[in-house]
């Protein structure tokens, strides 16, 4: 399994880094959202530190959404998804490989960038640490739920418009627990948010390949 699985992950990573550099675009989008918010709500650092967790979490989810249409739609349009389906990998393994590649190319870089943006928001040390850890745990769930949406809409010409409508309500728990962990760290409380976020992420990553594979199967059947 490792041979084709790893090469599929590497292929998707190469596509993400080369074709228009969509991984870098997601990062730029994330940074821009974080820049626009202080322009909207004012430069009061106390206020910004308070809302940093929520703003950066919402920004990360939106940034991850941007690159989701690339996950399956490109491969479907140029026919490479048919070839991938013929490979020795099961479609569930394909879905897991694509999920991993999406996380490596968006979730992980977003997480690594987050402490820098937290600095701009005046988030204190424990809050920054909580944000970093919660994004590290939570962004796989974003990729996982997003992968379901991407596979549902892979044959649509304008799937990008309908995708957020499908995905965002399902991601509410991730945003609540993720931002909740940051707020708890600011107030020196422990409210179990990280544990709940881990549970959500584990369930999402575990179930998503099956749902995504079912969607790919039905779209290739026709």
């Amino acid at each position, binding site marked *: 399994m490792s041979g084709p699985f790893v090469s599929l992950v590497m292929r998707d990573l190469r596509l993400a880094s080369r074709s228009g550099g969509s991984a870098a675009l997601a990062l730029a989008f994330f940074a821009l959202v974080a820049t626009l918010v202080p322009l909207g709500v004012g430069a009061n650092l106390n206020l910004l530190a308070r809302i940093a967790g929520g703003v950066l979490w919402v920004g990360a989810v939106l940034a991850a959404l941007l690159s989701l249409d690339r996950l399956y739609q490109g491969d479907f349009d140029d026919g490479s998804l048919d070839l991938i389906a013929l490979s020795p990998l099961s479609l569930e393994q394909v879905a897991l490989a694509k999920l991993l590649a999406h996380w490596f190319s968006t979730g992980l870089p977003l997480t690594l960038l987050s402490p820098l943006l937290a600095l701009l928001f005046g988030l204190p040390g424990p809050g920054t640490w909580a944000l970093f850890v919660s994004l590290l745990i939570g962004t796989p769930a974003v990729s996982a739920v997003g992968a*379901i949406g991407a596979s*549902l*809409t892979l*044959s*649509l010409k*304008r*799937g990008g418009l*309908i995708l957020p*409508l*499908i995905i*965002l*309500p*399902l991601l*509410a*728990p991730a945003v*609540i*627990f993720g931002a*909740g962990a940051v707020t708890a760290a600011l107030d020196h409380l422990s409210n179990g948010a990280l544990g*709940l976020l881990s549970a*959500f992420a584990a*369930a999402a990553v575990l*179930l998503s390949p099956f*749902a995504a594979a*079912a*969607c790919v199967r*039905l*779209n290739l059947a*026709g």
Partner: protein
Amino acid sequence: MFRYANPAVFMRLSGVLLPWVSGAAAILLAVGLWSSFHVPPDYQQGMTVTIMFVHVPAAIVAEAAYGAIAVASLFSLVWRHPLADTAARAAAPLGAVFTALGLVTGSLWGRPMWGAYWVWDARLTSFLLLLFLYLGYMALWNAIEDEARAARAAAILALVGAVNLPIIKFSVDWWNTLHQGESIVSGQIASVFLLPLGLMAFGYMLLFAALWMVRIRTEIVNRRARSLMQRAG
């Protein structure tokens, strides 16, 4: 269950049931509304408590409708039940309207009680998310042109949503709670309120059932008309 999967059997059965169900819904809603206006004022909420009789049943039906969609989707995915797709699709706009009705009546109730039309309370928020789930589900149905493909994709989405819905509910509860707790099953509600609430709840459910049947029948007739037109060339 599978005997009714045949559209012809369903048409015959629902044709017999429909007048009875709609009639019962009309009577229950009329009696329920009448008795809603004749309850004594609540000791805390005054006469605004009457809003409960249109609000709580809408919320119950809104959630039940999503459950119905999820069950129909399961039937469609696992057993390729031919009517299940039609049933799931037909229930979605109804569920969305009942969700919106629950949100609107809830917000009108919230204004005198909480002093604001909208508060970011757990149940209000999870209902808002439920509305978006309905909208996304309907949008997916409409976006995919091939009907069989749309049906299966929508069924997968409905099941994913059904798995996620309890988690959303839990997370939002964990996040914030202002809404009053459940009081019907636990018996904390005053018994004078229970009768109109029960009447209205059954009335709403039968109304939903009647509308649902009408929508499924319309779709079946539509399909027949389309195939006749195709045959005629």
